[in-house]
């Protein structure tokens, strides 16, 4: 299978492309969106991208269970990040009444 074929036909390369594009979109939403919640979702996307890559690799290594275990941990991390992140966003909202990250810019210089 050549490269492009592999991508289109669900080879390892295809999963990696999906993962990396997902990663890029996640990063782009952190960079381009101003709404903190969406930026946070971008981060979740980035984590998911890693997940896709991880499990694709695990599969091509003969269904390596280590990968799935690590996936479990990543989910736990994502959950923890969600808890802390959302708490921070709520805390910010209470003080500033906004979820726009550009408006929360009093610390600078």
């Amino acid at each position: 299978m050549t490269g492009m074929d592999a991508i289109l036909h669900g080879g390892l390369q295809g999963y990696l492309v999906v993962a990396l594009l997902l990663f890029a979109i996640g990063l782009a939403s952190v960079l381009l969106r101003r709404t903190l919640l969406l930026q946070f979702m971008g981060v979740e996307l980035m984590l998911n991208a890693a997940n896709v890559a991880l499990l694709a690799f695990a599969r091509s290594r003969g269904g390596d269970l280590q990968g799935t275990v690590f996936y479990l941990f990543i989910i736990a991390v994502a959950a923890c990040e969600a808890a802390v992140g959302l708490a921070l966003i709520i805390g910010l909202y209470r003080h500033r009444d906004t979820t726009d990250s550009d408006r929360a810019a009093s610390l600078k210089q």
Partner: protein
Amino acid sequence: MTITPTQWAAILPLLFPALGACLIPLMSLDRDQATAKWIRGAMYLTALLAVAAGFWYLTDLWKTGAQPSFHQLHMDRLAQFSGIFILVAAAMTILQGWDHFHQEGWVKGETLSLLLFSVTGMMLFTATSNFVTLFLGLELFSLPLYALVATVRPRPETAEGGMKYFLTGAVASSCFLMGGVLLYGFSGTFDLKAAATVLQAQGLGADPLVLAGAALLLFGFLFKVSAAPFHQWTPDAYEASPHPVAGFMSVATKGVAFIALLRIFPGSLSGVRGLEAHVQSALAILAVLTLVVGNLTALVQTNVKRMLAYSSISHAGYLLLAFVAGTPAAFSGLLFYLVIYLAMNMGAFGLLTAFGLQGSHTTFEDLRGLGWKRPAMGFCAAVFMLSLAGIPPLGGFYGKYMIFKELVGTGHVGLAILGVLASLVSVYYYLHVLVALFLQAPSAEAERLASDRPAVHAPLAGATVLVAAAIVLAGGFTQAFLVQGFAQRALQEGLGLFR
């Protein structure tokens, strides 16, 4: 599933703070505790005890020379070194926080608990070369810190600082994760040392995705050491957080990130040929950028905490130069530098607490004349600032001395000259603190602080500052002992350098 005594030995140092972290929130369940001082005391004592137990255990381990391990956790000399480093920082933070958190309107135990969680994570982070554990350690120490930054909820900017730290940190750890996953994918193992062997054996060392993975891994570390351009969260987070927490972050985060960086890149991944050169050239560029940005921006700060934040960025630049030199001597210089840096930066942030500066009252104006009002603290301030500036014979000088010596020795004279010029610039803003403390007439705030409180405002904070100053001063005379007795042994026996 039984755990052998050696395995216990490996995890006990982590278990103590973890246990403390779990216990303390339970203590703060009582609703009326705001009035019950003894509960507060008990919480602090528990935290201290947890830290002290870990410290005691680790020093004991150091003395015996054993390097036990538990699964992916290797409590080798380097891990013991960094464990001691972290625990000392934590102890200082707790002592400095005793009164300070109270004044800032936050008395609950969560702060302490989070701190101890973070400590556990840090110890894990520096004690493993397995990516899974490394990542979990990173998250375990980062997540509590995100929260800690924003604990002083009455201040409006704290949540902002926490949010910034969190968001940038999450991006960085995602990148870190992606990098690790890529390395795993190509090697089939999460153990980075084994991965390096596999990659080298299969000739994948120069595969673009492997290199990209390594770069992303480095990204994560550089974020934690706050090297430019991954540094911008630093001043905001420090300014937002309570002084002791800022001190803890500046010292411990940077310290563990550097030690882990040392363990992974020149350590575990050294098996991949050619990677070292990439790392060095990338770090050379970023070190220059870090030195320039850190020092220049620090120069124009009006807020002491922000100045210290930028100064910590610039110190990351000096420390990165050790990687550029890349010799064992430079790394032992790095570890020595970290030890002194621990004392002087914890001390510097502790000064703010000890002077009784609260909230956002941390500008140079607020410091005016305080040096004379509190001579002991003023003396400490002079020691810290001059040491941070690298003026001999203080400890800070020797760290720079060793790194520059190795830089020059490996032919990077230009970088060394840039380094000394940067430290020349840094002298100016460190002196600014002394100018405010000693060379200017006391401000109204200073008069007020001096008049309505006892001589040293926060006794424990003052004490830790004094201890830190003593360490810095002593560091200027026991440098050879520290380097040979600790730094070199950590590197030699833990990492296998100096062979």
